[in-house]
């Protein structure tokens, strides 16, 4: 089957086999999407309907959305969690790109000596399990009075995404044809000129793909947020888990909250998917 599919990419003609493979792709797509679909559907039900046998026939209600976004004093509200997440994600991604672009440049276009070792060092920090660092981080943060602040999450999310960003961006930079840079040099363009007029336009899709991945990982991060930030700067994932209760039914409320929490990243990912594929294609090889 797989061999036929690979060849089909070139041949691309109709025929019953091709039709069946198309149907199969649809089935696989729907199966993968089903849990998400079910989550969205349940968010529009009442708690009684969500707890009953699965059914697609019901009166859609916004009741759960009203309930989960209602502000209760003393409890983490959706607005607050959303703005905490937005700040942590936006600012950390900005700093990641600010440091990763020059670093990737120094590892590809005008490479430092032993750039491979440097690159390996960056990647190796990703292998450091975050749990291994959580104790010292907690103690250091406490001593610096950073516990439960947005700043702490911004710093940690920047560190978390920086190696991946450098690695991906380095691959994109290596794709820039040497001749173009040399031509710009001969034309007397300064290094800044070479970067802004030659390199950046070519790597733009790569920059977008990289920033998007950083946003996804930071928006979805839960462990650091819950361990270091459980009072004062709570983010959206913490707010979602707050909707699981041990008393009474919570399925519909949890579904509504989950839908709200995942919506921003899912929409961004849908819109940018073509870029992401192109970015990964360029980024995978050298």
């Amino acid at each position, binding site marked *: 089957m797989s061999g036929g599919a690979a060849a089909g990419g070139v041949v691309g003609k109709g025929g019953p086999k091709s039709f069946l493979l198309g149907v199969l792709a649809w089935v696989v797509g729907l199966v993968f999407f089903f849990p998400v679909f079910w989550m969205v559907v349940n968010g529009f039900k009442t708690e009684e309907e969500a707890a009953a046998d699965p059914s697609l026939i019901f009166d859609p209600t916004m009741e759960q959305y009203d309930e989960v976004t209602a502000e209760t004093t003393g409890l983490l509200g959706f607005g607050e969690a959303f703005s905490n997440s937005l700040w942590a994600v936006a600012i950390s991604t900005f700093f990641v790109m600010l440091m990763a672009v020059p670093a990737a440049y120094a590892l590809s276009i005008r490479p430092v000596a032993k750039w491979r070792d440097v690159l390996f060092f960056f990647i190796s920090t990703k292998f450091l399990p975050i749990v291994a660092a959580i104790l010292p981080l907690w103690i250091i943060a406490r001593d610096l009075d950073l516990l439960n602040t947005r700043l702490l999450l911004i710093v940690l999310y920047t560190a978390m995404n920086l190696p991946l960003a450098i690695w991906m961006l380095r691959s994109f930079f290596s794709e820039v044809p040497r001749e173009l840079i040399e031509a710009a040099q001969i034309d007397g363009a300064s290094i800044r000129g070479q970067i802004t007029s030659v390199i950046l336009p070519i790597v733009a899709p790569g920059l977008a793909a990289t920033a998007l991945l950083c946003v996804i990982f930071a928006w979805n991060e839960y462990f650091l947020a819950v361990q270091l930030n459980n009072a004062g700067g709570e983010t959206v994932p913490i707010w979602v888990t707050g909707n699981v209760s041990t008393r009474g039914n919570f399925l519909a409320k949890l*579904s509504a909250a989950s839908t709200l929490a995942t919506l921003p990243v899912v929409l961004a990912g849908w819109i940018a998917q073509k870029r992401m594929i192109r970015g990964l294609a360029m980024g995978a090889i050298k």
Partner: protein
Amino acid sequence: MAATASRSEAVKKLQRREAWRRRIPLLPALLFTIVVTQVPFLFSLWYSLTEWKIVPPEPRQFVGVDNYVDLFDSRFFREAVWTSILMTVFAVLLSVILGTLIALLLDRKFFGQGFVRTLLITPFLIMPVVAGLVWKNQMYSATFGVFNWVIEGLGFDRIEFVSRWPLWSIVIVLVWQWTPFMMLIILAGLQGQSASVLEAARVDGASPRATFFQITLPHLRPYLELGVLLGSIYLIQVFDHVAVITGGGPGSTNVPYFVFQRSIGGGWQFGLASAYSIVVVVASIIIATFGLRVLSGLLEGEDPA
């Protein structure tokens, strides 16, 4: 003589200046990464050589390698290591295989191709905590789960998936989330294949199977490696799914969750927990370095010359 010496001196100076000019753009990222990731690691190293219990509070004492001896004696630690290995290997392999098959399905023209791709990438974009909660409460659950509704409809008894197969309950959610990522990478590889080479193979009468194994697969090698590497990095650290699906139930406590349980998750044995984390870091780096090399070497041998 003196002139040439001073000239080579000057050249060296210039070279050194050039070397530093190249290093400058690298410095912010390098310094930041060292401070934020390596300093805590050094603290961990120090803690791991001490006996340090927070609850009940006791003075911290230097005990040397005692913690390391204890941990290799610990059956629970060995179980956690084994769980981590199983979880990572199954999740990475299954998502790479499924991702490749789905990428091959998508790399062809059919009605609604873009829409199906959109459906397929969605699980990767879902917050892990949400993925875990949705699967646990709406798919697996014996009371509200869709799976059990189907099973009962077919006339079988309801199954408590999570308590019966804790490890697999987690692995399936991980595969669900990471298959789309692998698919994206492989799809990128497939679309980067030169059409003329494939056309030539077809004209030469190569069977689709031969084309796949001799042209497409070798071409995909770096993309597969990339998928395995990135997948391993992220999946070996899985915490969120374990926390929300089983809460570390029997057979599902991986090393990250284990370290959490022994320290801030209630154990409060900071010295011992630090020793665990040091061992994990060292092991991960060894596995990462050698694993990738072995993988490249194996696949290299299959390259058609």
